[in-house]
């Protein structure tokens, strides 16, 4: 009999092992919500913890009653034919387990509503000196425009630390969602309307960004990066972006630039010139990743230009593998890698 009781403990074993497995870390510190690095993410994390503690309290009570019931009130063997008392209920208990949860929820609801409004604060009319960034989501890349600074870039979002940066979010094609977990929660980018939010990074660093709304086959690959810098560094970057030159430094790059001007420029802008249906490439050479997901190597750039669909299924860039020979690809890569504003 005693052994049988322990059977119920077993059911918690897989749970415990999984908890042990996953709690060994809080995740990648550039990606996780559990090590917040921004004002918004901290507010959100605190609410996550508050609600978790309240809920763990409830769970402990349930688990206690549950365990007692399973141990004490088991039927002992087939010949245990006793008919227990047919209790109808208990009004006091019903009132108790109605009112106590209501009180617990009030404890949760008040800070919830306060934080909901706090996170929306100022988004409709940001302070005069605040930086505003317009984010436009595309299948499957991100466009970042700094209207006051007259800068456009893509994939890598530069922002200053220690201040609230205001965002205006929209989409060009289908719904996406703009999410930088370590800095703050997500906001959808819709078609037809503009959403507004702010993020505030506590310290300089590179943070991963994700698309969080199913947007097509390459939804999983719609990554971007946030590069948060001290205000001075950011201002310096902005100035370099404003004065970025697309002048090729070598002969090979010169050839690449000519190729670029013949075709690529229809969709991709460098500096102020070029189309805007594809990512702006003004500081392409500075990016850690190609297309947000590939290591920044010459091979990957060539592979991407030759056949983008192989890396991001369903994306809108045509394959140029048939139109460009190896020499031309090398030249393009040389040119693109020279598009830098940082040393």
């Amino acid at each position, binding site marked *: 009999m005693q052994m049988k009781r322990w059977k119920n403990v077993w*059911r918690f074993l*897989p*749970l415990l092992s*999984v*908890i042990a*497995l*996953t709690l060994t*870390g809080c*995740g990648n510190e550039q*990606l*996780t*919500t*559990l090590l917040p690095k921004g004002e918004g993410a901290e507010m*959100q994390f605190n609410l*996550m913890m508050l609600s*978790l503690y309240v*809920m*763990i309290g*409830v*769970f402990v009570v*349930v688990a206690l*009653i*549950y365990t007692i*019931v*399973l141990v004490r*009130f*088991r039927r002992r063997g087939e010949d245990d034919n006793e*008919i*227990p008392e047919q209790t*109808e*209920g208990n009004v006091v*208990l019903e009132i108790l387990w109605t009112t106590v*949860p209501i009180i617990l*929820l009030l404890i*949760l609801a008040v800070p*919830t509503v306060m*934080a*909901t409004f706090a996170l929306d604060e100022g988004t409709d009319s940001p302070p005069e000196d605040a930086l505003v960034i317009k984010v436009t989501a595309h299948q499957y890349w991100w466009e970042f425009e700094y209207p006051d600074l007259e800068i456009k870039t893509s994939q890598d979002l530069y922002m200053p630390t220690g201040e609230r940066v205001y965002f205006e*979010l929209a989409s060009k094609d*289908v719904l996406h*969602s703009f*999410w930088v977990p*370590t800095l703050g*929660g*997500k906001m*959808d980018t*819709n*078609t037809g*309307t503009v*959403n507004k939010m702010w993020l505030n990074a506590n310290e300089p660093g590179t943070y*991963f960004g994700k698309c*969080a709304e*199913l*947007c*097509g*086959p*390459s*939804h*999983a690959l719609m990554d971007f990066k946030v590069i948060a810098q001290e205000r001075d560094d950011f201002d310096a970057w902005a100035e370099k972006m404003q004065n970025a030159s697309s002048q090729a430094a070598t002969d090979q790059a010169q050839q690449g630039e000519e190729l670029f001007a013949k075709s690529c420029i229809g969709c991709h802008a460098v500096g102020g010139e070029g189309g805007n249906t594809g990512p702006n490439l003004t500081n392409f050479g500075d990016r850690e990743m190609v297309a947000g*997901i590939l290591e920044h190597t010459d091979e990957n750039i060539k592979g991407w230009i030759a056949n983008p669909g192989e890396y991001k299924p369903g994306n809108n860039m045509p394959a140029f593998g048939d139109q460009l020979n190896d020499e031309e690809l090398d030249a393009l890569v040389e040119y693109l890698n020279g598009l830098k504003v940082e040393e």
Partner: protein
Amino acid sequence: MSDYKKKNPVWDWLTTVDHKKIGILYLVSGAFFFLLGGLEAILLRVQLLYPEFDFVGAATFNQLLTMHGTTMIFLAAMPLIFGFMNAIIPLQIGARDVAFPFINSLGFWLFSAGGILLNLGWFMGGAPDAGWTGYAPLSTTSPGNGVDFYVLGLQISGIGTLIGGINFLVTIINMRAPGMTFMRMPLFTWSSFITSGLILFAFPALTIGLALLMFDRLFGTQFFAAEAGGNPIIYEHLFWIFGHPEVYILVLPAFGMFSEIIATFSRKRLFGYSAMVFATALIGFLGFMVWVHHMFTVGLGPIANSIFAVATMLIAVPTGVKIFNWLFTMWGGKVSFPTANLFAVGFIPSFVLGGMTGVMLSVPPADYQYHDSYFVVAHFHYVIVGGVVFGLFAGFYYWWPKIFGTVLNEFLGKLHFWLFFIGFHLTFFPMHFLGLMGMPRRVYTYLSGQSLDEANFAATIGAFLMGIATIVMVWNIIQTAVKGKKAGNDPWDGRTLEWAISSPAPEYNFAQTPLIRGLDAWWLEKRAGNKVMVPAEPLDDIHMPDASILPFVMSLGLFIAGLAAIYSMWIIAIGGLVLTVVGMVLRSVIDYHGYHIHKEDLPAEGGKGK
């Protein structure tokens, strides 16, 4: 009954209007789609086994995730719930059939027509790939015909669900045996009653959303195209005005099943019956006021988000009431643990975890982090698997004897439970952390070096365990079908009316309509020393409804119309609609007299009262 119909079993099943047979049809097709949806889930998890793993690829993955969700909700959970409602509710309220047997059959055939149409996409150029939510403009611009199968398949099966819901509302209001007052109804009947009400109010929103989507896709309208003045957010509202109540449509009947199973196997009356009924109704009512919590990140503003946050938190109160009443039903009881009760008892901690994360998700600022991440995937699987699927399994082992007249193997049943229970937690518990660590949902792959590898691997192993558990269940069914042990009328010492009659129930259910003398009517009679229910009427001829092929024909018509519309074959589509209308006209002009089972033909033990 005419003899030729009896001779041909295929014809019999196509034309039956007997709620017990329709129940079996629902259960069999629901089980088929459950296996299909499960297979899709396994393929999804294999694709996510390792980072940057290539198994099915991006496009197929999106089709699989769309069809997994759509299949499990609309084609597995819904029909399985309807299967149990059909098989059990008329027996529980002492009725001979549902209020509208013909419509009952029509509901089933419409559901199957829609379900088959939805799945045809796999064979005709690609399944739907815009998620089970089908948000515009992704759904309106998705190339190929995949999403058309989604729109028309769901529309047709949705009509079936809607009329099924209406049928059960009327049945439960009008067909209760004498003495079966509302406050003496078993909890499964109560929760199905409330679920039917939710269906009545929730499904029209889906119908409208799908209709607008259909116009955008097939007829070039621009309801959801922002560049033409449309608004994609309207679709999200319509979908979730349906979608949130849908969660309760699924889980409330499961709650009803647990209420009966826990009471039966504790040998105790349900603790706090009236509180349970009130809590169920309150959950159903509040279920319509919380849909925006699926849309906290859409940008509706802090006022809307706050209101819906508080409304959502409120739902935790009646849900908590139910949990505590289940615990106190067992308290002081004599609890035994056959498979049915293992699933019911295993449900409690699993569902409480899902409820906890539900409250956490109701906090909008925190939800900005959770939303559309794996945290949400973990949450709703804890609710829908931990609640609905555990309920369906519990009900399956519990009512199998009443439906089929045999008992499922207990050893295999317990193996099924333990494998499934462990696999379930191993799959979904790590997903909470995946979400918190920044993994969005609906991604076909994840890059290495983001600390997401271990938990994804564990989740996939868990999914395999659930797959093995399901195979054990299928093996159990096959074994039982081949050489199952005969069940008595009342194998579990049941409390409610269905256990008072033979297993399986005769086609007329009750030879004499029983008199109900209290809650747990059959238990009361047994304790009073009675071997049968006290009849409320003298033994007489029993009037039975006629079988009809028309529901099948009408559904076939809509199926043809839907399929032809996808390919813009308008003549054929109109032909299909004409077939349906002809069926409706025939149904209206032909007199159905039904037939009688004469009292002399009723078996002697069929309830001769005094």
